């Protein structure tokens, strides 16, 4: 199980104030849970994923807080041990994972490199496992003999998902893993993922800009805005019972694809400059339900029976300060 406590990430800068891309984030992912993470482009989703996976260079970034995986604080692990955990306990498919493959190696060798480092399977066993994984992501097993440039964008993306599962990790972080997939393949892959996730009992942190997809596949959804998690709810409740005005605005942008007339609409305004120190609620300038207090006081996390919301609207009720 993953516990993230008061996590802060700042990209340092020589010339100006650093970019504080993750600001005091706090959440748990229990075993056997599929969690979606959504939010506007640039709000800090990938940074959060990097920080959890220990992929940020401490010289260039300032990371604070705790990332506990099964009781171990990953942030305190020496890099050697962290490397040993990667793939086997925690694996990540980076955004743009389609170019994470080494261009001069066949797909199968990239799988085998990972497998060799962490297990002592024979070559035949490895080949069998690779074929099995490739079929699971709707690829023909012969794809293992291809070089990355011979595959389409979506084929590489699927191969990257397959690779992340190769050692049956406990936690898989997938950052925008299906941007190059058509709806049919996407559905098949996310169904496979959630079936496999329940079968093997691992957990998934699924980062996506597509709230519709996340609502369908995740058990829980976290909504991020300007470096903070502003709402955390069971997926089944979000559509009807979203509380944070940002979540509501986001849901309001979705058009029913089957509707007679469709149009694209956005949320007016833009997110705050992440170099700045937060004063008040970062969403306030764009918020339809803004109150006076929102501009001056930073909201506190309000716990709900299931999940939480970060908004002054709900503060007078059962406030918990953590």
């Amino acid at each position, binding site marked *: 199980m993953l516990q993230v406590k008061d996590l802060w990430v700042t990209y340092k800068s020589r010339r100006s104030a650093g970019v504080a891309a993750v600001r005091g984030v706090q959440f748990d992912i229990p075993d056997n849970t599929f969690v979606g993470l959504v939010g506007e482009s640039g709000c800090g989703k990938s940074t959060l994923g990097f920080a959890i996976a220990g992929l940020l260079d401490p010289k260039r970034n300032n990371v604070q807080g705790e990332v506990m995986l099964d009781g171990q604080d990953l942030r305190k692990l020496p890099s050697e041990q962290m490397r040993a955990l990667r793939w086997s306990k925690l694996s990540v498919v980076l955004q743009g994972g389609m170019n994470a493959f080494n261009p001069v190696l066949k797909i199968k060798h990239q799988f085998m490199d990972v497998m060799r480092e962490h297990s002592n399977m024979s070559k035949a066993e490895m080949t069998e496992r690779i074929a099995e994984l490739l079929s699971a992501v709707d690829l023909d097993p012969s794809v293992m003999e291809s070089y990355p440039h011979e595959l389409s964008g979506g084929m590489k993306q699927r191969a990257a998902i397959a690779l992340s599962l190769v050692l049956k990790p406990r936690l898989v972080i997938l950052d925008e893993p299906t941007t190059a997939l058509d709806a049919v393949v996407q559905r098949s892959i996310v169904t496979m993922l959630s079936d496999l996730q329940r079968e093997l009992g691992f957990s998934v942190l699924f980062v996506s*800009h597509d709230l519709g997809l996340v609502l369908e596949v995740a058990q829980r959804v976290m909504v991020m805005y300007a470096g903070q998690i502003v709402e955390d709810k069971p997926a089944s409740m979000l559509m009807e019972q979203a509380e944070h005005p940002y979540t509501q605005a986001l849901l309001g942008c979705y058009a029913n694809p089957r509707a007679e007339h469709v149009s694209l609409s956005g*949320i007016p305004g833009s997110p705050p400059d992440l170099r700045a120190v937060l004063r008040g609620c970062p969403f306030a300038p764009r918020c339809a339900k803004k109150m006076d207090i929102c501009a001056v006081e930073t909201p506190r996390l309000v716990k709900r029976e299931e999940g939480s919301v970060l908004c002054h609207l709900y503060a007078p009720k059962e406030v918990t300060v953590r």
Partner: protein
Amino acid sequence: MSLREQGLQNKQTAPGRYVLELKDVSKVYEGRGHSTVAAYKVNFTVEPGKIVALVGESGSGKSTLARLITGIEKPTEGRITFGEWHVESLKSRQLRNYRKHVQMVFQDPFSALNPQNTVLHSIMRPLRRHLRLSEAEARERAFSIMSTVRLTPVEQFMNKKPHQLSGGQRQRLVIARAIAPEPELIVADEPVSMLDVSIRADVLNLIDEIRRTRNMSVIYITHDMLSARVLADEVIVLYRGHIVERGTSDEVLRNPSHPYTELLLESVPNPFEPKVRTASRAPEVSITRKQALVAPVKGAAGQGCPFAPRCPHVMDRCRTSIPSLTGDSRHQTACFKN
């Protein structure tokens, strides 16, 4: 007057004069022991100022067509013309001239950007080189485009290098760079795939605005059916290198008639018709999966309908001959059931 000046002058007086035409375009990749037919006898035209969406399966040849149209690769067979250019036979110097009029937005924004160049430099360069704007003019134009694609505050983003941008911000930079010089044709390969609905709307509106004001033609490759319906005039559905359906976007996406297009539209996640996350969904999907391990398009093309192996309506003749597109200009389908 040099050719270049002529080109520029024409560009300023009469933008969007050219028609793009693909005639029987095929592309076969020869591999070890097998070949892949990434495009099979593809025909279509794009009139000036029109937006044509290419949608379809992952691996169906969309990016391949984009590379052929922009001259990055040559077709195995067939002809591609854009105005007077015969794209398939351009030599490298002519190709450079051609590329002033035709911009490509690559599918993968992570590899499309030079890591050394700042945001401002990337956007200003084509403005200086292709439109010959002065430093100050180019800067001003670049700022205005940056704010439209919401790379704001501008002074925060202008000096950033690609690695300092989020995925969606890179994608916005790639688009900004391609539309800045106001090309005659833009081939945009999944340009907004990492953008949330909110920013996506702004970017697509910008593309729409430029095509209206500058008569720019657009090939919009996407997996997002909703934006295809809103933005595109025409939609072309590809399946394993074949056009299986085409027509006006409203027609194709509201009354799909090819079984693949139907399947595609049914699969779009729809928060308004929530599907319960239970086993009840699994059987339906596992049937499709069993029928249809998406094999690369191997071996001899042209034996039957490419969709036959997974089609619920398959008939004998579907396995032996390829259906051709039939219907009127508003809606055509390549399927024997019609």
